[in-house]
């Protein structure tokens, strides 16, 4: 009752009464800082401790009480970590897999999403239903057959997409049900007029998609790219199953293997961890707007 009747007079009244009542006892800063500063410290502490340990000497790391401020900064941990595991290789592999997955998703999901949004063809409804069904099934259900299929493909069709090749990390995710669904939904919100008039002017359907529809869909494509990138970059279970050779490993898998081999050499481990973390943090901050907007979009779409 109150909520619905009030908005009309709120503009007038709010200015006068509310802030005045609140002004009585004011801190020189917003009281929310008292909450946010400790919360931020807790959130950032793992990062800080990671960095500190990565430049400590092994003796300092294995000391109790912990050395909170190292006496000398031992940057040699970084070359040492690089010498015991090829983090550069892991990074390159992760980057290749992520970029290839993003690009192929943008292309294949655009094509399929557009067809599902605009064309009528035999079997469209059934196909779309099957694709939607795969969206609901957790990866754990499909991973064993996926492993067998990938193994078979590598032996009988093309070694580059078989087990123990980074191609095996790209191909199964080269088009995703989520991407098709997401773009289809977006394409359906676009006005038909542009597409129609381009068709009247003699443009092919592919030209219409590339020249008219995709430019209008840039925000959706950016969202799909950001989400696909994050997913690919952080994927662990499938690489763990599909990859065994060090030189084909992605960062999460390489880091996990490195941890298994050096589980007590904390300074090395943290240096390796920093090197694995920094590229993604950098990408994330450079494109923060896109990542945030994309994640928020999934939430708002879900609501």
């Amino acid at each position, binding site marked *: 009752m*109150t*909520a619905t009747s*009030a908005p009309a007079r*709120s503009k007038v009244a*709010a200015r006068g009464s509310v802030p005045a009542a609140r002004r009585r006892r004011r801190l020189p800063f*917003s009281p929310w800082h008292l909450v*946010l500063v400790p919360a931020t410290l807790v*959130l*950032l502490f*793992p*990062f800080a*401790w*990671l960095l500190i340990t990565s430049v400590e000497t092994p003796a300092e790391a*294995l000391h*109790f*009480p*912990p050395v909170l401020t190292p006496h000398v900064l031992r940057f040699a941990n970084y070359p040492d970590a690089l010498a015991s595991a090829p983090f550069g290789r892991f990074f390159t592999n992760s980057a290749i897999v992520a970029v290839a997955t993003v690009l192929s998703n943008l292309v294949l*999901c655009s*094509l*399929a999403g*557009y*067809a599902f949004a605009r*064309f*009528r*063809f*035999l079997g469209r409804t059934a*196909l779309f239903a*099957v694709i939607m*069904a*795969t969206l609901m*099934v*957790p990866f*754990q*259900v499909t991973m*064993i057959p*996926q492993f*067998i299929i990938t193994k078979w493909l590598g032996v009988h069709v093309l070694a580059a997409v078989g087990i123990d090749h980074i191609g095996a990390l790209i*191909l199964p995710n*080269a*088009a995703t049900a989520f991407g*098709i669904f997401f773009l289809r939904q977006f394409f359906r919100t676009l006005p*038909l007029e542009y597409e*129609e008039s381009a068709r009247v002017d003699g443009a092919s359907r*592919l030209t219409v998609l590339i020249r008219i529809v995709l430019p209008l869909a840039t925000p959706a494509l950016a969202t799909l790219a950001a989400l696909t990138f994050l997913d690919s*970059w*952080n994927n*662990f279970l499938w690489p*763990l199953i599909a990859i065994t050779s060090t030189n084909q490993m992605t960062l*999460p898998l390489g880091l*996990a293997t490195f*941890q298994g081999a050096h589980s007590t050499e904390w300074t090395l481990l943290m240096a390796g*961890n920093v090197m694995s973390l920094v590229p*993604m*943090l950098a990408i*994330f*901050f450079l494109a*923060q707007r896109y990542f945030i907007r994309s*994640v*928020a979009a999934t939430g708002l779409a*879900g609501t």
Partner: protein
Amino acid sequence: MTVSHISARRGRPGDVRRKVADSEQFTGWAFVTPAVVIIGLFGAAPIVWSALMSFQRSNLLSPSTPFIGLANYRQMVHDPVVVQAIQHTLIYTALFVPGTMIVGLFLAVAMNRKIRFISVYRTAAYATMAVSTISEAIVFIWLFDPSYGVVNYFLSRIGVPPQQFLNSPSQALYVIVLMTIWGWTGFAVVIYLAALQGVPQTLLEAAAIDGAGPWRTFRRITLPLLSPASLFLAVWLTINALQLFDEVYLSTQGGPLNATTVLVYYLYNQAFQQFNFGYASAIAYFLFLVIIVITVIQFRVARRFTYYRS
């Protein structure tokens, strides 16, 4: 055809109408085929295949894979580790999901204002989203190291004796809850902040004028308006929680004494360490069933509490 319908309905000269359906058939299939082949091969076919496998005795050692009916499912009932894994998965989910939502909601409400340094605060929360589960797990193993960990040091400062954390069967699962809540904080904050920005200022002002205090305004106005976001988070976090694997694999390998063996870890163990594909497929389908049942329950319950404007 869709095109022609609409242009005809709008009464414009439908030049497009003459385009024969054949070209649309062909183009339609040409456009969807690459994606459909990939999803069919790696997404759809495996669903059927693993369903079949769950009724077979299938492992890498023997070449034949005889159908054994429901034996794999029956084995689950009598497997004490499966029972434990289900318990651990549910305990983990019951702590992780509300924990992440409360932390996310609290921080998002605190950050939903224009005060100084707000972008610093927000960025600190967002940063956790850029951390892979593996990086996160390694840092937390170190923070919670029983001998040299900084958490034990902080505890010692307030007079608490050193804890075994990940080495303790009674604590390990809770440490994993903490590390994953940290890892998901950024995600929850982003979702709640986006939803908070959709709460109309006029409603809040109106409530204030009518004499509602900040807490009441939050309880009666903000929280109901956030309910769609809360439902999304609850469902999304639950699906992810039921599939917990990375952190367990890295930090405890299911131990100590199976204390952190969750469903997906046991499934992985059965599939790719014991190579019991049939049994693992049965566990996978059981997991799928659990996810469906819990999600349906969430939507059912939410129907009563979720408030949609429009």
